[in-house]
């Protein structure tokens, strides 16, 4: 048998058969006396899959992952003896799964363009052979503990898949297979458990998705996740192992920003969960990802990526499950010692799925129809992020980035407000910025990051000690310009002093030359930390040089005519991250530009 997680008996132990009593949308009432809450069931002549969510006497309530049209009372129902669990082993990467880990390409081969109901298909292909290399030093007689590394399979050119002892298994190693080609279901090791029974281990094991995978201890997150997006990395950093939320009304560029993160971030594994979102967006990811190279390794991006897709038109219960399927796979790669990023788009759709099921069950709604346990479920989900010391003794992390889709863009609604209390980094998207086509439309006033001090240490060690001060100076300029903009809106720009006008211009330089970043521009799409810092420094340098002149009495009007100001706004798309020499040269020329003006000004003292 294969492990199915703690506390669950072997599925073949006994037949648990019953029948359908009632059908109400995705909720089905079954006569199934022996069932346990959380157990998977197969229901009806179509053998639809679902999950038991309640018991009452001899009947059980089950929520179905598939459309229940055509089911009849009296049809058979079967308890499968295990909870919703995922298959963890080689074959995960480069795949696209639905919300209950059915591989969508294999499903397509079986049922065509549309997803037929009741399809049974393994998550990991059984016919594919993998080249297994046993770990050194594991000889028969070794005491194995859960999570230990048995060997590796080079799954893609960039990722070595470490084969782990299931976390709930420990005992004496009886034998370990030699190097060779194996299928995921082949036995590669035998272990004598504490009770004397013998357990065969395969290249894969199962784990129930609603149980967090164990680890030794939590570590401090220390390294920033570099996304190549300036507003994120430089202004509101996220650490590897951290928790972030991207709330934004529709049309604010949430999906685009997440895709940029999935493309460019320096994680080793990226898991993208499309939860209740658009089908075409997933298609976009599927079509563009294979063409793109990982900027950090030069390998195709798909080699480190896997997708979990429950689009908005797919059954709502599987949508609720999809988030847990994603995070469990993320934890599994973490346990192999990898830095994993999971992007969940969108946690609001997940919460709405909760609400929909709660409504069908007649549970008491609290805020906006959401059930009372919304906050605790959200917190429990985000708590599965973190950097840990793994059972194998290495270090791995899961960084969680959850999109939030607040109705009407109202951040006080339940999902956004609960999320805001849980996460550390908040990338608030603004409709106003998006309407002005300021992308990424991350609002520098509403956003925050609790990771700035930790990130500052990394930037100081790896890029420049001036990072924290430069970041603060830029934010000061931005907030000063907000004030000034209000005055301008009331009385016009002519009412400002030269210094104030120059502040306004410098804030504009930072907005257009640093914060705005074109995802579609080949050069600008990704900015290395060094380039991010150089651009920021350049704009601050222009501000400082100009300020000196203004304070000497030069009118801002003259300064605003400098061609440098328009040029500097284009630098971001002219200088690629891997060739910054020319950018540095242009920055070095900045003081000279202002000196020439100072001379001009000295010759025309009457001006102003």
């Amino acid at each position, binding site marked *: 048998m294969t492990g199915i997680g703690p506390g669950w008996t072997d599925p073949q132990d006994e037949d648990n058969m019953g029948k359908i009593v009632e059908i109400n949308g995705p909720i089905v009432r079954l006569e199934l006396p022996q069932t346990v809450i959380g157990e998977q069931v197969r229901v009806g002549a179509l053998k639809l899959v679902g999950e038991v969510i309640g018991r009452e006497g001899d009947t059980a309530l089950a929520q179905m992952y598939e459309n229940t049209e055509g089911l*009849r009372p009296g049809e058979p129902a079967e308890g499968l003896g295990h909870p919703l669990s995922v298959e963890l082993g080689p074959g995960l990467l480069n795949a696209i799964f639905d919300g209950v880990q059915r591989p969508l390409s294999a499903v397509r081969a079986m049922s065509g363009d549309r997803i037929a109901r009741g399809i049974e298909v393994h998550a990991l292909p059984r016919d594919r052979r993998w080249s297994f290399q046993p770990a050194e030093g594991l000889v028969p007689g070794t005491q194995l503990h859960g999570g230990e590394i048995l060997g590796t399979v080079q799954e893609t050119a960039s990722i070595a898949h470490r084969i782990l002892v299931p976390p709930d298994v420990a005992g004496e190693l009886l034998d370990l297979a030699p190097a060779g080609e194996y299928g995921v279901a082949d036995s590669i090791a035998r272990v004598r458990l504490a009770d004397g029974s013998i357990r065969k281990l395969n290249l894969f094991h199962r784990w129930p998705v609603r149980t967090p995978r164990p680890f030794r201890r939590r570590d401090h997150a220390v390294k920033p996740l570099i996304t190549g997006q300036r507003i994120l990395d430089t202004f509101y950093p996220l650490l590897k192992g951290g928790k972030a939320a991207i709330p934004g009304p529709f049309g604010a560029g949430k999906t685009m920003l997440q895709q940029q993160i999935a493309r460019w971030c320096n994680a080793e594994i990226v898991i993208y969960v499309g939860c209740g979102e658009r089908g075409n967006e997933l298609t976009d990811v599927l079509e563009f990802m294979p063409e793109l190279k990982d900027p950090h390794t030069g390998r195709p991006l798909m080699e480190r990526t896997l997708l979990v897709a429950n689009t908005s038109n797919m059954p709502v219960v599987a949508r609720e499950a999809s988030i847990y399927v994603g995070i469990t796979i993320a934890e599994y790669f973490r346990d192999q010692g990898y830095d994993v990023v999971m992007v969940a788009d969108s946690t609001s759709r997940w919460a709405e799925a909760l609400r929909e099921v709660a409504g069908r069950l007649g549970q008491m709604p609290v805020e906006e*129809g959401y059930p009372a346990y919304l906050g605790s479920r959200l917190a429990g989900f985000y708590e599965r992020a973190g950097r840990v010391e793994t059972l194998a003794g290495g270090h791995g992390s899961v960084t969680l980035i959850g999109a939030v889709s607040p109705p009407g863009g109202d951040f006080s609604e339940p999902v956004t407000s609960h999320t805001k209390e849980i996460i550390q980094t908040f990338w608030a998207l603004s409709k106003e910025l998006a309407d002005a*086509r300021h992308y990424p439309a991350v609002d520098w006033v509403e956003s925050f990051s609790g990771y700035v001090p930790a990130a500052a240490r990394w930037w100081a060690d790896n890029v420049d000690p001036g990072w924290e001060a430069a970041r603060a100076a830029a934010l000061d300029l931005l907030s000063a310009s907000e004030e000034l903009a209000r005055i301008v809106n009331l009385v016009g720009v002519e009412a400002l002093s030269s210094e104030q006008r120059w502040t306004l211009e410098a804030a504009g330089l930072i907005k257009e030359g640093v914060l705005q970043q074109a995802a579609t521009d080949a050069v600008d799409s990704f900015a290395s930390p060094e380039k991010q810092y150089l651009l920021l420094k350049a704009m601050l340098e222009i501000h400082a040089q100009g300020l000196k002149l203004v304070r000497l009495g030069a009118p801002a009007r003259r300064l605003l005519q400098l061609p440098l100001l328009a040029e500097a706004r284009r630098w971001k798309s002219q200088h690629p991250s891997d060739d910054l020499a020319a950018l540095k040269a242009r920055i070095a020329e900045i003081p000279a530009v202002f000196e020439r003006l100072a001379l001009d000004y000295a010759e025309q003292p009457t001006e102003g």
Partner: protein
Amino acid sequence: MKNVEYRTASSAQGGLIVMRGVPGVAAGTRVALRDASGRLRSGLVIRVSDAAVLVEVFEGTEALDLERTWVRFLDEPFMLPLSRDILGRIFNGAGQPRDGRPPIISRERRNINGEALNPAARAYPREFIQTGISAIDGMNSLTRGQKLPIFSGGGLPHNRVAAQIVRQARLLGEEASDFVVVFAAFGVSSADARYFQESFEDSGVLNRVVMFLNLADEPVIERLLTPRTALTAAEYLAYELDYHVLVVMTDMTAYAEALREVAVLRGDVPARKGYPGYLYSDLAEIYERAGRIRERRGSITMIPVLSMPSDDITHPIPDLTGYITEGQIVLSRELANQGIYPPVAVLPSLSRLMKDGIGKNYTREDHPHVASQLFASYAKALEVRVLAAIIGAEELSEGDRRFLAFADAFERRFIGQGEDEDRSIFETLNLAWDLLSMLPPEQLIRVTEEELARYHKWQPTVEVV
């Protein structure tokens, strides 16, 4: 079971009847119902247990009694018969003819609920569709397989815009003749329905249009079927007959209100503004039927029209729609009041798929940059206009006065156009450059220097008034 009539209704109210003692009824089955006067009605099983079956009656429970109501369970879901002959025809929401011609007889019958498309089977929408409307083509382009709604408000000319799109929409290139339209109107007045019909007749497009009509005074439950029957027809045309199908649906607000009405009858727990918690999933089932499938020639492009209650874009219907569709075309009351047609508010409008359907190989190389520049310049110009309203235009700097003039010209000449004016994308782009030439080159940082050199006709000496 199909031929057995049951007379075991135990309760009836508000469009729902409960049948007792009927074993083994399948969820979602169609029902035929006969009342004391012999009148036939149809319905759908919406909840079933071994003791009771809950049936939704399309025509309502008016004039029913429990003793003389006979019910047959047809043992199949709601099916739509389909053939090539549906082109040029007019049906009601349940797929029955309402043009006085015979019903469609065909062995091809499909469940109107459809089945979810496997995301791995989708192909990404890329090719540009020209609507001939500058505000859409130039700045919020529609691509084949996209769903792009029109967000409107009561009294705004969304029906005229929708009709203009139906008349003018075309593909660039050789496949132009494979283009057909499925038009679904639900909850509309009979005057509006007549307007559409005449508009299609007059422009000679009627023979490549299939119409599904459910008028405001017709059964509410049939309204819930109408988009589904229309999309089932569209899927047949697209994926069996290889047509490129444009689906125009109006008015989604009427649909959502019908959904709310039925949900309340069923006793569903309300979420926002009384709409059921599953409004998002329900709308997604409709909207997500747009798209393209790999290795299939046809496509479904969707333009749903909805009127925003009180012009409120944060109302649940436009809000949830916006989260599912790939952008939105927003109509503005302010522009409409100034007599600008079509009154497209370009700043809150958006086409998410535009970036992949325009530019080199699709429209013209400069298109992405021009669109971006128009957005940026118009946004700036509107800021200036606000300022001018406060301090007076004469207090503005010369640069700002140019922006003010740009805003006016942009609204009048670019957004505004005739209801029969069909502009090619090249006319639209050239017009855009004419307008951008009112602004100095240093203000145009979204376009490249080469594009400026080629298209921009800046005349710094022109006096701005």
